[in-house]
């Protein structure tokens, strides 16, 4: 009995050690691949950063209509964001190569699913990009229009429009990424509805004066005693 137990233990230890020994080169390859990718990533980032700086990438990006990229970027610099993104991409690629050395079956499955997910990622990135541009454009239109109409809550209105479009965009992007679609739909409905109600209340309460003034003007016109404005612009 005891000898059988000893034999089983020995066999199991040997199986584990054999398995482990077969994994060691793969793990070593993973570490090497990771180290190489870190070095390559850092070198590429170091090349890209001064290149983008010399092209005045940060300023140009703002001129092209993407100043909000700076807000998300580390140290408010899109150049730094791009160079770091390149480094991370290279390291991630190195990691995937390293993983492939450990277990071919498992990693090929992983690689397949990662590749299959790329269109979703690209779609979501595109939706986010377009959404951000549209949000910014609409927010500016509303802000300028509201200021020119002498509305005191112009900024609130503009922010409301911007966040409505951003929330819609993020929800669409998450839908593309297939991340908790049920929760996203529910959260989007609640958030979007909340913003609309908030804006409706804010504008409704704020525009009381506007409506009163407008009615007063109409009444003045009707009674014919409105004061003639001397200014003729165009």
């Amino acid at each position, binding site marked *: 009995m005891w000898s059988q137990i000893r034999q089983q233990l020995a066999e199991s230890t040997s199986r584990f050690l054999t398995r482990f020994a077969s994994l060691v080169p793969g793990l070593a390859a993973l570490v090497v691949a990771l180290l190489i990718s870190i070095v390559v990533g850092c070198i590429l980032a170091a090349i890209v950063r001064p290149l983008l700086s010399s092209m005045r990438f940060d300023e140009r990006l703002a001129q092209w209509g993407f100043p909000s990229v700076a807000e998300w970027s580390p140290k408010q610099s899109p150049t730094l964001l791009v160079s770091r993104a390149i480094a991370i991409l290279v390291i991630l690629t190195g990691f995937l190569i390293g993983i492939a050395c450990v277990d071919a079956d498992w990693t090929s499955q992983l690689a397949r699913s990662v590749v299959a997910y790329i269109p979703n990622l690209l779609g979501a990135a595109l939706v986010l990009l377009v959404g951000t541009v549209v949000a910014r454009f609409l927010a500016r239109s509303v802000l300028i229009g509201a200021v020119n109409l002498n509305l005191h809550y112009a900024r609130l209105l503009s922010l409301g429009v911007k966040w409505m479009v951003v929330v819609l965009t993020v929800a669409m992007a998450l839908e593309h990424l297939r991340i908790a679609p049920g929760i996203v739909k529910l959260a989007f409905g609640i958030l979007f509805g909340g913003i609309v109600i908030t804006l409706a209340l804010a504008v409704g309460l704020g525009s009381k004066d506007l409506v009163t003034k407008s009615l007063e003007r109409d009444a003045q016109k009707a009674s014919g005693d409105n004061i003639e404005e001397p200014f003729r612009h*165009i």
Partner: protein
Amino acid sequence: MEVEPIPEQVQVQEKIEQVDSADLVVGVLAELDQVGLAAVCDALGTLPGSPRVVVLRDDRAANPGQSNVEAATPGASSCHLIPWSLLGSATPGMPVAGTSAAYQSVFAASEKFGARACCVIASSLETATPGWVREMAQPLVERNLDLVVPHYARRKFAGLLNSSIISPLMRCLYGKRINNPMGPDLGLSRRLFQKMLGPERGAGVGGSPVHSLASVAPAALCENLQVCEVHLPARSYPPTDWMNISSLLAQILSPIFLDMERNAACWQRMRTSVSVSTIGEPLLVSQDTGTVDISRMMESFQLGVRDLQEIWGLVLPPSTLFELRKLARLPSEQFRMPDELWVRIVYDFALAHRLRTISRDHLLKSMTPLYLAWVSSYAHDVETAGRTALEERLERLSVAYEAGKTYLVSRWRWPDRFNP
């Protein structure tokens, strides 16, 4: 499938075919009734040399709802009244583009009739008889001048966009002191209207459409053509539409800034300005001397300073933004915008328009509170001023535009490097 022409079109076509050529074509965009048109024809009939005149009437404006072929040829046989489709003059929401299209239509008709000159009548004047059209046309047919622009008798609070930007800017850019470079009543020689119809005018900078109204004076001045002003009575301006003022501002300034881009090589050479020859005597008009209410415009400016910093920050240098913030804190009665500041603002917006720093429509609309701030300041300056003081005030502004031209040229040439 062939389309059968409707009888009205056939009659108009027949009427056009009766007039194979003309010496002078007059396009009437203003609202004139049949009697007024006949008076215009009578006045033009007294022009020296009895030129053959074709008057084009936009029927939609003159007799809405009536047939286009009701036009009758008035008594004077040398004057033919022809209904003409002045395309685009009723473009909804784009009155300036529509007016420019109408000008283009008049130029095309003038070319078709082989005219020596053409006039566009777009205003109704306060005290004038239709004879003033003759005053506009005479220098074209008699002295062979190329461009006749009006010099309306000035009311201090009328034509403010012209006084604050258009006239002093064109004077500083193109070196000729023209009071109303954008008319809208204008007279053009064959040479000039052909230039306006030319293929190089077909598409503007970057494919943007060319607006004839804004381009006429710069085209004439850059080509060194002969220009003169005719003194006319005060013009009747439509009341201010406060809901659309920013949109109108954008529609008027955009073609002017586009022309600056197109003519950069020309205006960068000009250093000083000179007067142009004038015809007639300045006409005096009574001026209002009471106080005016500027609270609405001040409120707009203060709101702009509070909420539009993000947009102005992309266009204006920090020193200008700082000065604007200081101005916004002043009480209404002490509010004065220095001419130098206003001039730099106009130049910076022109530059941002060229560089497309932000959407051009946003850019120009965001200028409205600044423009209203200038108007408020100007209203303070001239509310009790007489005619001479008013002219002096506007002359100071024009001089400030000329003094600031080095700033404009520097920023235009080196927008990144030269940013004080």
